């Protein structure tokens, strides 16, 4: 069932479209992430769903109910949309205690004092902040503040959670912890979640589905796996994955019944190019992730090692041949050193090809 639906939603600031003619459906219980660089329109999209921004045109539905429609003259204000929203800044009211921060919204719902107390206790327990209810936000650490914001969102018991980069203000360690907390919570509460981030790791780890956005447009909408393995276009390919995907310009051709990807510096043997597609002799770009390349024939070969960057669990190795730079990831540490010479083997079935002209995935 479609929980949230955006139809031809456009948001313009002056002449610039922050969100451009966007269609999007979000299923019930889904954890959907809007991923993209800053200014891509992801936060605007989220704020439009919440009602904090008003679309310039288009329609917006939730639970089959119209939230916004310029055509039909409908606008439901945020107060009446019954959503949970978590801000990047947490937006905790500094002059109120943790308890008051959580209960204030509940009080307007007229659900009885006892019930409110119970719920506050519940949610604080859920976010592991039992006993903090009379503290003020300034007396809490960043992580704790974040969890109060989370608790406040949960307490309203709405079936939709909107989160705007909620983890970006935390330090790296806490961020990793909170990811699993969020994932756990999502499973427990089964609320439809829309999550905005520019952090691709966060998107990959948390989501059921990722919407990659750029310049107000959807670049790809797919599962994390698909986004990672088969980026729909060069933008997604570049944006997702760390280290960056290797993109090599060249063209396809056949020789002796075998297919190759080749440019003036390198030549990569391939499986079969799909028939029917007339790809030969055209400028295309091959994309291959660093973990899909294996280093062979150490101390001899066509590639020179440019840099070696050990990071504990893995080591990133930059190799160079002619004008082509290629990043390779190996697990653990390596004995290889700068300026060693090596040879590479590419996993043939994991290479994606993009049109240089349209930047779209060819296959």
């Amino acid at each position: 069932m479609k929980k949230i639906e955006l139809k031809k939603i456009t948001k313009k600031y002056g002449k610039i479209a922050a969100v451009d003619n966007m269609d999007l459906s979000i299923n019930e219980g889904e954890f959907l992430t809007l991923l993209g660089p800053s200014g891509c329109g992801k936060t605007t999209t989220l704020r439009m769903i919440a009602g904090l921004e008003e679309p310039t045109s288009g329609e917006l539905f939730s639970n089959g109910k119209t939230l916004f429609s310029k055509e039909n003259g409908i606008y439901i204000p945020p107060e009446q949309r019954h959503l949970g929203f978590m801000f990047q800044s947490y937006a905790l009211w500094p002059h109120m205690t943790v308890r008051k921060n959580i209960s204030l919204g509940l009080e307007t719902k007229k659900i009885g004092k006892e019930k409110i107390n119970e719920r506050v206790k519940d949610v604080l327990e859920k976010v592991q902040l039992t006993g903090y209810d009379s503290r003020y936000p300034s007396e809490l650490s960043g992580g704790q503040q974040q969890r109060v914001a989370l608790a406040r969102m949960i307490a309203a018991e709405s079936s939709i959670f909107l989160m705007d980069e909620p983890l970006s203000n935390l330090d790296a360690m806490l961020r990793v912890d909170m990811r699993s907390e969020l994932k756990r919570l999502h499973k427990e509460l089964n609320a439809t979640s829309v999550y905005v981030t520019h952090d691709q790791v966060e998107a990959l780890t948390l989501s059921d589905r990722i919407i990659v956005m750029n310049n107000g447009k959807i670049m790809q909408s797919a599962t994390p796996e698909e986004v990672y393995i088969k980026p729909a276009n060069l933008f997604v390919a570049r944006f997702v994955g760390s280290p960056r995907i290797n993109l090599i310009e060249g063209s396809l051709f056949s020789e002796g019944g075998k297919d190759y990807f080749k440019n003036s510096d390198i030549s990569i043997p391939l499986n079969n190019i799909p028939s029917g597609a007339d790809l030969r002799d055209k400028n295309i770009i091959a994309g291959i992730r660093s973990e899909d390349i294996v280093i062979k024939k150490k101390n001899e070969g066509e590639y020179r090692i440019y840099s070696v960057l050990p990071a504990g669990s893995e080591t990133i190795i930059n190799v160079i041949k002619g004008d082509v730079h290629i990043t390779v990831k190996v697990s653990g540490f390596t004995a290889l050193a700068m300026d060693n010479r090596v040879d590479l083997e590419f996993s043939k079935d994991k290479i994606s090809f993009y049109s240089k002209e349209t930047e779209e995935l060819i296959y």
Partner: protein
Amino acid sequence: MHQKIQFYTSKLKSKPEIILSIIFVVVFAFLIVVPFAQMIYTTLTYQSFDLRLERGAEEGAFTLFHYKRMFKSDLTVPLFIKPFWNSIKVGVSVTLIAMVIGSMLAWLFVRTDIPYRKFFQTIIVVPYMIPSWVIALAWQLFFQNTRSGGHAGVITALFGIDIPDWLSYGFVPIVICLALHYYSYTFLLISGALRTIDSELEEAGAIGGLKRSQILRKITFPLVLPALGSSFVLTVTRSMGTFGTPALLGLPVRFFTIPTQIYAMINARNTGDGFVLALVLIILAATFISINNKIIGVRKSFVTMRGKGFRSSPMKLGKLRPVLITVLLVFILCLIIFPIVMLTFSTFMLLPDDYSFSNLTSHFWIGKSDATVASGELGVFRNRGILGGMVNSIKLGVIAAVVNAFLGLLIGYTVVKNRGTKLSRLIEGIAFAPYVFPSIAFSAIYLSMFSRSVGPIPALYGTFYLMVLIVIVKNLPFSSRSGISAMLQVDKSLEETASIQGIPFAKRFRLIILPLCKSGFLSGMILTFITAMRELSLVILLVTPSTRLLTTMIFAYETQEQEQHSNAVTLLLLLLIIFANVLIRVLVNRKSEDTMNLG
């Protein structure tokens, strides 16, 4: 069509800032724009007064009569050009002196390790709380000579020195008296700006090998230059429009300024000419402000950038410390403490120029009616008139303070929420417009506008509420500025998160915005309270016996030669303002420097 209406109404309901904008635009149009238009209209038509000069003219008919009189007749030089230059001379001189004193004090208190900072600073801003013309009264007390007959001032009485006219009346004393008031104004503006400068910038200079004076000149000064520019413009604009001091000290030597001319014309029911001169002042002020904005940029010039988390380490004064402290003490003693003591002392003197011990009396404070003293006027504490005036003043101050603080915040909310739109700029602009209106002309317009009922508003002429209204409107520039800067500091997500949780606007405002803006709100309140309590030129045309204020009573007593009463009421007013100020500070328990933040 129907759907469209429905769409906009449902949108409106959920967007308080839009509703507020509409309300503000309508209300401001009525309270600010219409009076202004009325003023222009008056200058372009024959008024009943003019019919006496131009027989056969028809009242209300279009004419350039007033403009011709003011700008192209034998009246032009005496009525317009000379007062105009006098105003400019006074405004610029006052501002320059005030800025030198104000910025030196600001630097001393904000940037150096001067001791007893809080104590000094509290005393330093006392002149801000006194109406500027009260300083002129004090001047007369000391420097009056026998030109206007009667008894001479303290200096002549004590030392037998004859004071020359130029020191008794006219340009020099007007400038000195106004500068002694306005330095507190520039001090507050500049110290606000200085506080926002990260002292690391200065320290970097010190590490780079610059001397202290070089740091001041090459780093500090350029950094506060925008603030200096705006304080200059704001002070010039205000001091040019001042009425009380030039009226008191200028008349005996016929030193007229534009505001005193406006007052004389309006008093003679010659409003057409008066408003032409008022327009001149408005245009002049608007020009100054626009030049300033062009040079410095609007944002920097008006929004107070409050220092947050900046490091500010005081500069060591070293050997200069005792010298500067002495200078400061002498300054405070001569210019603040001594005049106040003399003012107090004079209220205990039976005859105004007899400084002997036997002449002391408590009659003016607690005396019963005695026909041989002060025309039988009762002592201050027995005097129902004075106590009534005190109640009126406090009422005016409190109502205006509360209303202005709320309005300021609501305007701030509206402007900040609509930021970037034309509507937002329009509201911000109109709310600032009363700043350039000369008080006298503004009140003359209100007087005629509200002498009849307008729509649902009953005729307010002669009522207390007209004074409340005009004081509120005239203070809008300050309260809206402080409201805007307070709102700018509140992250918008704090309110958004509340609205998402279904909390309605009224509750959001009360529980979230108001508490978060508390400090700006309170400082706005104190500021309005002070300005309302010391207001004279705005209300002098509007008071009636039942709505007298302490300030107008001081003026009236002064006019009736009841000096002791006038001085006693002045003292009362001063004590009230200081008391209210201290009270609020204690209640809020905040640092003095933040409370006095000017918008």
